């Protein structure tokens, strides 16, 4: 009898395991999207969307867009999930490789998209209804959604870096125009400190924010076409040394190693710092500060130019991508198309402040807001990221060194060389390092 109990338990465990291992039946459509294109009204099912937007500020708008979508297509149910941005990339990768628990649609940062595509996790959206009128998309964002000649995402929002400044502080210091290059920034910072006591410009030690300095010297992280790592060459070094000079001269307060940038942003929004390099996502937080109760006080100019006279800012943003193993491609395409349509982009832009990715979405209403208009202008000179799968991962090593460089703990040349070497050994094994 006792042996019997054990035997029953063992058999029970085996059957449970076998039942759970029952495979997923159903072949799933090839994902051509023909049903979505021809009879959208008949598409039914559930679509899961992992949205990485800010849970406090942006998610409510997107939830309401989802409700509107469900009203338009009553047969489709959308499972909206807000996923913390910092975790989303890893969470998606783990889910995608197991075939279980992955969403149908993901709001993917442009830096992640080529990586996902290379691993085969994304559906090629070229020719599907998901892209809608693809000619209407802005050039930079569309390039950021492509990999290996195919388009893997529908650009949803885009952004660029700009120079934010406190108009009142600049006026008090006698700086008539926002600085147009880094030398002018230095001069303006000195005046501001002298006459108002506020800090000059806030520089973020995050690797992404080093790009304007690189672009200003007509350089870049890597040269994809020539397969060269260019971060350690003379031009890049000059750009980074400009940044270090700003910190050394006191024009930019030295950021702390941890949470340094958040502190600077807090200073800026409360009027203790005059200038800041950041993107449109930060404006919502900044308008909550005591110095910008009157929104008109916030000025936005293009990123300052380098010694070559060229000003460059990276194009960032997010794409909506479709999981290659989705069980309902048609519904996913319809959702992607809906969310990236001009009308919805306009709604999101006016509600949240993000920048649309379609030319037709830049209506008078959208451009009426001075912040959006300013960033729209900044987009004109912005450069898309290198379209390599390692694009996002380049920043991990670079971040370590740039933080040390900008907090004056490491010599720029040493840090840049170390970064180039790290990239060559682990990420870009077949690239050359350009001196």
């Amino acid at each position, binding site marked *: 009898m006792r042996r019997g109990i054990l035997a029953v338990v063992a058999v029970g465990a085996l059957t449970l395991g076998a039942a*759970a291992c029952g495979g997923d039946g159903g072949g799933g459509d090839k994902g051509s999207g023909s049903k979505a294109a021809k009879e959208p009204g008949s598409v039914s099912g559930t679509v899961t969307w992992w949205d990485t937007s800010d849970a*406090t500020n942006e998610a409510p708008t997107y939830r309401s867009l989802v409700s509107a979508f469900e009203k338009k297509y009553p047969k489709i149910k959308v499972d909206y999930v807000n996923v*913390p941005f*910092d975790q989303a990339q890893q969470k998606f990768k783990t889910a995608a490789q197991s075939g279980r628990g992955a*969403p149908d649609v993901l709001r993917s940062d442009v830096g992640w998209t080529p990586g996902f595509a290379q691993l085969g996790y994304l559906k090629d959206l070229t020719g599907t209804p998901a892209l809608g009128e693809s000619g209407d998309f802005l050039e930079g964002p569309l390039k950021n959604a492509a990999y290996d000649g195919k388009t893997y995402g529908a650009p949803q929002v885009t952004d660029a870096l700009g120079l934010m400044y406190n108009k009142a502080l600049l006026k008090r210091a006698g700086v008539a125009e926002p600085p147009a290059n880094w030398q002018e920034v230095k001069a303006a910072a000195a005046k501001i400190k002298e006459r108002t006591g506020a800090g000059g410009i806030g520089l973020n030690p995050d690797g992404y924010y080093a790009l304007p300095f690189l672009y200003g010297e007509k350089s870049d992280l890597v040269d994809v076409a020539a397969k060269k790592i260019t971060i350690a060459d003379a031009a890049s070094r000059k750009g980074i040394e400009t940044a270090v000079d700003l910190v050394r001269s006191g024009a930019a307060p030295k950021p702390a190693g941890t949470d340094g940038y*958040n502190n600077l942003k807090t200073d800026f929004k409360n009027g203790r710092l005059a200038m800041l390099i950041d993107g449109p996502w930060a404006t919502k937080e900044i308008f909550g500060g005591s110095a910008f109760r009157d929104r008109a006080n916030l000025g936005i100019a293009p990123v300052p130019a380098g010694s070559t006279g060229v000003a460059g800012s990276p194009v960032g943003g997010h794409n909506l991508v479709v999981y290659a193993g989705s069980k309902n491609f048609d519904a996913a395409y319809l959702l992607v198309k809906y969310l990236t349509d001009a009308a919805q982009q306009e709604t999101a832009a006016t509600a949240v402040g993000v920048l649309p990715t379609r030319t037709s979405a830049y209506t008078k209403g959208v451009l009426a807001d001075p912040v959006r208009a300013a960033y729209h202008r900044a987009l004109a000179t912005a450069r898309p990221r290198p379209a390599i799968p390692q694009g996002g991962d380049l920043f991990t090593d670079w971040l370590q060194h740039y933080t040390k460089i900008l907090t004056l703990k490491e010599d720029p040349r040493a840090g840049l060389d170390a970064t180039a070497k790290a990239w060559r050994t682990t990420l870009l094994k077949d690239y050359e390092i350009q001196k």
Partner: protein
Amino acid sequence: MSARPGGRAVRAQAPRTVRARGARSRGASVALHATLIAAALIAAFPVLFVVFVSLRGRDGWQEPTRFVGFTLANYGHVLAHTEFVVWFGNSVLVALGATALGVLVAASAGYAVSRLRFPGHRPLMWTFLVVQMFPMAVLIVPLYNILGTLGLLDSYPGLIVTYCSISVPFCAWMLKGYFDTIPVEIDEAGRVDGLTPFGSFWRLIVPLARPGLAVTAFYSFITAWGEVAFATQFMSSERRYTLAVGLQTFVGQQKAEWGLMTAAAVLITVPAGFVFFLAQRHLVAGLTAGGTKG
């Protein structure tokens, strides 16, 4: 602080107060209390500080030494404008489940090793120790795949069982030592009285083992309550997020919503503190010499 042998002889010499053996002088008492107060302040200060910041509104954290502007606005925002209540409920469910299952499994295993020296008990004890040595973070992907195969993703049982695999090794190891201190005569008395081994375990041993079980329950609860990595990966629908996952929407690399975060932190710590309060008088007894003999 030593007593003086032959106190009577000393008394004749000088009018000193004879202290009872083990009593302290005033100076020693002050020193003792002062040290303990200082230590208690260091232990409690971060907790108190978090409460303080959470009560000072959205931006109060920027002026940490000023005592103005007290408001419950942060709590209001956290409770009303986020899914905090849902996350809280999920965390409670998962933590209680992990505690119940963890105590049951650890107690059975600890008792079995302690009383019934079956072949394989020594390797099992070593396994309990060794399992704690492998970095958990590296297990995430294979664990995800296993849970996927078993259909336990995005489900409470999946997370509960995972948490048990984290807390049971230490708890079983500890409980074995604790059961070792309970005399075998009690088991034998139970058998004489006609109870099955399980009966004597349940009726006689468990009541005596309450402190050890309290420690196990506390440890399992705290482990499940505060775990982040597995919860983030395994729970993919919003209505199943635990507190650890939800809190990450407040604080990230680019955000500094410290006001909201401290309010959420206080709300998270309160239940853990409550369980702690229930268990705390048993904690010392539970980890007593027997328990940590290993």
